[in-house]
């Protein structure tokens, strides 16, 4: 297992409060890219620009809207949007207990277990350290004009209660703030 990953697991275990950001992560790079399988797996600190550059070599692209290519893919994932969620195939995380977990994978169709890889899209760094994400990519010619997706706050009390309880599932000690 790579050493940065282990360092971060220890950091999480030993911390009582952590504010997650890309600079804290210091974890970037393209892990795997299979153009013929339309899939790329990247460490969360990788910039969107770097991913796009890599995909361009094979005339492929991300099929979700991004307005700032300098931010990391992990930041975009944590911010969350429907079009990004649609492309997520899998995620590897360190939860609030420092445990490294893997949900989903590199295949388009996967219904084993709850869809945690998409549940955590929009988790804003409050549930877990997002370490690695796998995306479905598309041939550039198939991508039409991308527009910013609409986002609205769900004001239902029940919705907020469920989000709060789900935070406790991933971060039982409440260290991610």
């Amino acid at each position: 297992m790579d050493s940065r990953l282990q360092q971060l697991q220890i950091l999480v275990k030993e911390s009582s409060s952590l504010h997650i950001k890309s600079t804290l992560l210091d974890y970037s790079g393209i892990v795997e890219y299979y153009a013929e399988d339309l899939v790329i797996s990247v460490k969360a600190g990788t910039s969107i620009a770097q991913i796009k550059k890599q995909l361009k070599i094979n005339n492929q692209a991300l099929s979700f809207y991004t307005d700032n290519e300098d931010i990391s893919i992990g930041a975009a994932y944590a911010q969350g949007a429907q079009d990004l969620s649609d492309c997520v195939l899998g995620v590897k995380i360190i939860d609030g207990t420092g445990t490294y977990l893997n949900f989903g994978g590199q295949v388009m169709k996967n219904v084993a277990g709850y869809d945690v890889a998409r549940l955590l899209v929009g988790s804003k760094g409050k549930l877990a350290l997002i370490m690695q994400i796998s995306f479905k990519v598309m041939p550039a010619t198939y991508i039409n004009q991308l527009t910013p997706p609409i986002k609205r706050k769900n004001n239902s009390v029940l919705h907020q209660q469920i989000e709060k309880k789900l935070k406790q599932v991933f971060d039982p000690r409440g260290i991610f703030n």
Partner: protein
Amino acid sequence: MTIVNQLSRAFPKGIVLTSKENTRPFECDGLSVYRQKPLAVVLPDDIVQIKQVLKICKINKIPVVTRGAGTGLSGGATPLEKSIVLGLSKLNKVKLIDVENQLAVVEPGVRNIAISEAVAQYGLYYAPDPSSQIACTIGGNVSENSGGVHCLKYGLTVHNVEAIRMLTIDGDELILSCQDDGLGLLALMNGSEGLLGVITEVTVKLTPNPAFVKMVMAGFDSVRDCANAVTNIIKAGIIPAGLEMMDSFAIKAAEGFAKVGYPLDAKALLLCELDGIQTQVQLELDNVLKILSGASTLKVSESEEERLNFWKGRKSAFSAVGTLSPDYYCMDGTIPRRHLADMLEKIHKLSKKYKLRVANVFHAGDGNLHPLILYDANVTGELERTEEFGTEILKLSVDMGGTITGEHGVGVEKLNAMCHQFNTQELEIFHKIKHVFDENSLLNPGKAVPELHRCAELGAMHVHRGELPYPELERF
């Protein structure tokens, strides 16, 4: 008063079924090897009645198994011992069609194909098309995150649902939209197999009918050549609407059954459907024909009738195989496409090892395999051998970086295989998610996620640093 009496008293006649004859059709779903008689079947007319059922079940601590059309293939709707089946087939109205925004609001019991039929007059359709689409319901589709033959280009159910209304076990309504800021709760509900809530309304995204469609049928002398052709099509930057593959056994079965003109001497058959605007389809078609130039037979559909005919063979492949064997067992593993040829060779070897025939039919475009293992349940030990064979295929799928189920769900069928795909900590997260929604575990309990002791007994636990987690658990 027993729960059956309470239910019977709470509802008008015809809503609660209790007699042996009336509840028998609900004893199983599409996976009929598992059967269980429920205490009662309730078929509510509206949401108020659903709430009442949940309330009565909660007070009595009786599990509820929600059911659509019962076409599922993994036992997701199989009743549990001493459970109530909540059948939503009567909630079958299309409530609203929003042509401008390409959306339809439907009740959970609306059949998949009925959505496309209702919106056909506007030149629209609902894209996900599981093979059971004439019967299966949209509520069931969301619960299973159902796929179909056009997923590569048009996505699964999760990509085609805009919003849902659901009831928690407490009877509270939760509205989830894909526009919600925050956690992906709508995505979580897709494929949650009836364990988190009861879906009462679905807003689906509609897709405009393609202007032009062509289908290429190609026969190959070797399975590897066919698998390579799949990879080369994607590599060339083409996303077919459908990309299906069958092996020689499946070709013969389908042709014998549907008589559609498949090449009987081919070792593998590829069906490649291209859709879109005419100029683009024509361009892609030229490209595909070039890529497939090494095929032993190559044919392009010349009419809509011929295109549908090519599909007919593929779509009847399961029933065709059914005529060749008393029983068959359908697998649903998914692997990265690049491993297709290797996987097929391995399945072929396993077929010899277990002395059981296999027909391979699959969604090659998204790596979703449906090997059909042929067996005879009346031969002692053959079902067990089949299940062992199936487990080996699923383990191979996981080891190749894939999954044990691409679109059929875990249900009761793949609980053991789940222990191979997920470690204890990951399974624990699943159990805790269930607990957030349903702390007394009354909604379809025991399905989809195996109990930790089950995995321990299987001995399939992931061992971390040489120590077994949860040493306090008894192991046999």
